[in-house]
């Protein structure tokens, strides 16, 4: 869906920050994804129109970056690190447990990610980009359940107003 009125104001303010408007692709894509839950085709068209490039150019840029989800994802995106510190501290076990536990839960999308810069308290994961560290399979599950029940919430990544999607 199109930017809400409030996010559209922020989007225009973001575009104005840059000497060249194309620089605004990434921040606008973050804003759209925070609002819609994933980066929709409509959003990429709207962003293209705002900054004066083709929709294909927006797609060309955004498809390079793993944070942008171009298909629908669960309300909670859980990113589990298995890189070389988490590897030896139990990250793969957390990932395997969560993948099985939430295999059929449409609300939760589990993904394996590269180093999250939380190696001092490995293994680590993020839920909608909020850090959770020193995990076990059990504690990771409890954290996800706390997000599901609304006990924990995420701030979002764009500084904009979240919609019905991630957030």
């Amino acid at each position, binding site marked *: 869906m199109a930017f809400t009125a409030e996010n559209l104001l922020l989007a225009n303010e973001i575009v104005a*920050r*840059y*000497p*060249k408007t*194309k*620089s*605004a*692709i*990434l*921040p606008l*894509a*973050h804003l759209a994804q925070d609002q819609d839950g994933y980066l929709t085709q409509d959003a990429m068209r709207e962003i293209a129109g705002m*900054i004066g*490039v083709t929709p294909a150019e927006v797609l*060309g*840029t*955004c498809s*390079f*970056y*793993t*944070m*942008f989800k171009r298909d629908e994802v669960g309300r909670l995106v859980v*990113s589990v690190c*298995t*890189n*070389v*510190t988490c*590897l*030896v*501290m139990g990250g793969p076990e957390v990932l395997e447990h969560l*993948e099985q536990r939430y295999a059929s839960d449409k609300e939760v999308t589990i*993904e*394996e*990610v*590269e*180093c*999250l*810069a*939380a*190696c*001092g*308290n*490995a293994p680590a994961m*993020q839920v*909608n*980009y*909020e*850090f959770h560290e020193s995990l076990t399979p059990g504690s990771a599950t409890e954290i996800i359940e706390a997000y599901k029940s609304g006990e924990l919430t*995420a*701030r*979002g*990544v*764009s*500084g904009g107003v979240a919609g019905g999607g991630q957030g």
Partner: protein
Amino acid sequence: MTSVIGAPNATETRIITKRLRDRPEDSWTLDGFTQSGGYESLRAALKLDPEAIGAEQVAAAGLRGRGGAGFPTGTKWSFLPKGSYPRYLVVNGDEGEPSTFKDRMLIENDPHQLIEGIAIASYAIGCNLAFIYVRGEFALGFERLEAARRDAHAAGFLGTNILGSGFDLDIVIHRAAGAYICGEETALLSSLEGDRGMPRIRPPFPAVAGLYAKPTIVNNVETLSTVPHIMRMGAAEYAKLGVNKSTGTRIFSLSGHVNRPGNYEVELGITFRDLIESPELGGGVRNGGKVKFFIPGGASSQWLTGSDEHLDAPLDMDYVQQTFGVMLGSGAVMVYDETTNPALVAWRLAKFFAHESCGKCTPCREGTGWIEKVLYRISHGYGRPQDLDLLLDVGDNISPGLNAPFSQTTICPLGPSAVSPVVSLHKFFREEVIAMCQNNDRVLHVTASDSGTSDLGAG
């Protein structure tokens, strides 16, 4: 230096981490910052001749980049062509080198310190618009940076006519979106311009033609966070810290099989043993074990082992490079005890580099994938005795000669970085790896179309 071989007793020397350790309750706020001396260095700097700051302060202090390459910061600033404006300062906050977690701590817990460093650097180089390229996954860091920027602006430390000096500066905080390669400075600039984050051929260097083809300085978060302290202490005083041409302190991100993993700011020149074993630092290997090997400077570096020769080497950028062909790099030290299968660590590193290869240069795009597949085979019990030599052959096509510092057939160092674990296995664990590959009756054919890692999900 506080190193005594056999009895490590080194402690932290807190300069850039002092505030965030002393007042964790409010170190990131404007009040917490100004109540502990914040923005005083900016006030002093604005009274100096801008060009003198680079030469007489930053260069004289011996400050070298803390992002990985260790290039002298003052020298980098001096490369800007005279009379060419606008020029930009871009802060590299895209921390993604595996097991490095210092910049995230600085961003989240002392964002004003970074902003003060940016303001001083911008004044010194004649920049009126600076960008902080901050890693996309750092949601809290972004929020704190944005709040710090707004508060600094409102208090007159940013904006027009800063502190009555006539100097103007705005900062744009730019969110990245999950691509390790954007930590490479030319890829970062491509990304900041709204393109795919692919490295560019140098020359031209960014100092001549960088962001929007204008003169641009790219500095790391920790590097710029150090600048206010050089101004406060004076270059001569700062340069007294450290050893040889590795002056000052650095934050080392210590992780893995140690009792006290974490970020430690130490004076350069203490030893790896000090860092890993001192009671106030790493506290030794878990369960009373021994170091089997460690990676001394982030995933891109070659490895060192638990030998006395390696553990007693000083944290001196040039010494470790010249003596062992390794780097202090991003300051990440990953420690592995004797329970660790080094081939498994090498495979996971190769998987990382294969995933993060941007695809621009053929030797890296193709080679990292093959290294990953063959290392998967070795580390998961399907290896053949000749596989290690096969890997060296693949590696030689990416980094001819397999030396350090790298030679490379690629535009940027990502491809050669994937060769580091291969060379390290060959140097230190050749017999162990070949033994692992003997008498395997299992066969895992590695082909381009059917990856050996297909059961592991997205790479």
